[in-house]
């Protein structure tokens, strides 16, 4: 697993939202059109690809793609 792989998964899942490429420091909630539904989709995406079910608290504290990657890495370790 590397961060680019995670970015690829998110880009595919949220192709309806994105106006440009995602970067590790992209703030998830600042993506135009982001809603609570996208938070659910993100949880399902991570569960599906990495077998990690993020908690609401973990998601709340993760501001960027890098933060999410780090939570997944920590949980997988």
């Amino acid at each position: 697993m590397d961060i680019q792989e995670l970015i690829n998964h998110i880009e595919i899942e949220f192709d309806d939202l994105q106006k440009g490429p995602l970067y590790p420091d992209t703030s998830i909630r600042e993506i135009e059109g982001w809603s609570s539904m996208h938070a659910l989709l993100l949880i399902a995406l991570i569960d599906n690809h990495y077998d990690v079910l993020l908690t609401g608290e973990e998601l709340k504290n993760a501001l960027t793609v890098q933060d999410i990657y780090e939570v997944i890495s920590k949980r997988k370790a």
Partner: protein
Amino acid sequence: MSIEISHITYYLPPGKLTNFQLSKIYQKSINEIFKSTGIKTRRIRSENQIGSDLGFLAAKRLLSNFPELKKKIDLLIFCTEGIDYKAPTTSSTLHFKLGLEQNCACIDMPMGCAGFVYGLSLAKSFILSEDATCVLFITADIPSSVIHSDDFEMRAIFGDAGVATIVEKSVRGKIGRFVFGTDGAGAENLIVREGSTRKPIDENWLSKYSNETDSLAHGRMHMNGLEIARFSLQKVPTLLENVLYRNELSFEQIDLFVFHQASDFILKALKRKCKIPDDKFYTYFENIGNTVSCSIPIALYHAEQEGKLKRGDKVMILGFGVGYSWAGTIIEY
């Protein structure tokens, strides 16, 4: 002994809540609402109509189509989260209104989205123990009565309905072994606190919600969508595996999977996680929404109507939700 689901009939109230109406109220586009819910229309009860009224109309329709059943029914199960009275049981008032025989047992069961599976287990147990031969199992829920007008997410998902199902001793068909689960720690994530013994509705409540339908006198539903999604993703795939194990069947031997029709998002995520092929995963919610305890039997009815469920097929049904509670079995149709 063979047991089958021999009849399913349902009733939907005439009121509709469309995406067009929601788009006007919440300033969202019709496409956006459909894309986030997978639902076009929800059916909403009429004023003063409660769960047992919808269940009664479904059962009345079933018994007028199959009048020979009326004398055979010796157990009535009524599953709802909105009973008529604290006492007597609503099933006994339905029994009277439907004109059933007096040698009929009546049970109420408030089980929410796992209710259909729980009720089926109860029906099977009565029939296997030879204490009943023909069960009228009514499910009816009116989630619209406990949703505040501010709660777009819930208004966009839930719909009202009533279903009457006949489960009876037969020469074909089988209801398999059940798997159940409970985690009361999740209670707060989907709850209607008020309107109950612990928290009765008072004058303050009625005046606070005087602009809402019925002043929300049945209570207000609170849902933590994120936690409910996590619960579903965590428990349902394991439930599926356990149901297969208990019934000594392989994944490939299941002809159709019919889950509680929770929401488009949850169903898609579960289908993907459980690796269920499209043609084996049946959904029916686009024109009715999530109808709580009614969602599985309505889906079974339509799967059969569309030829996707045939006699002899093995169908896995899984219910999950409020409690948390979850339950599953396999029906040989």
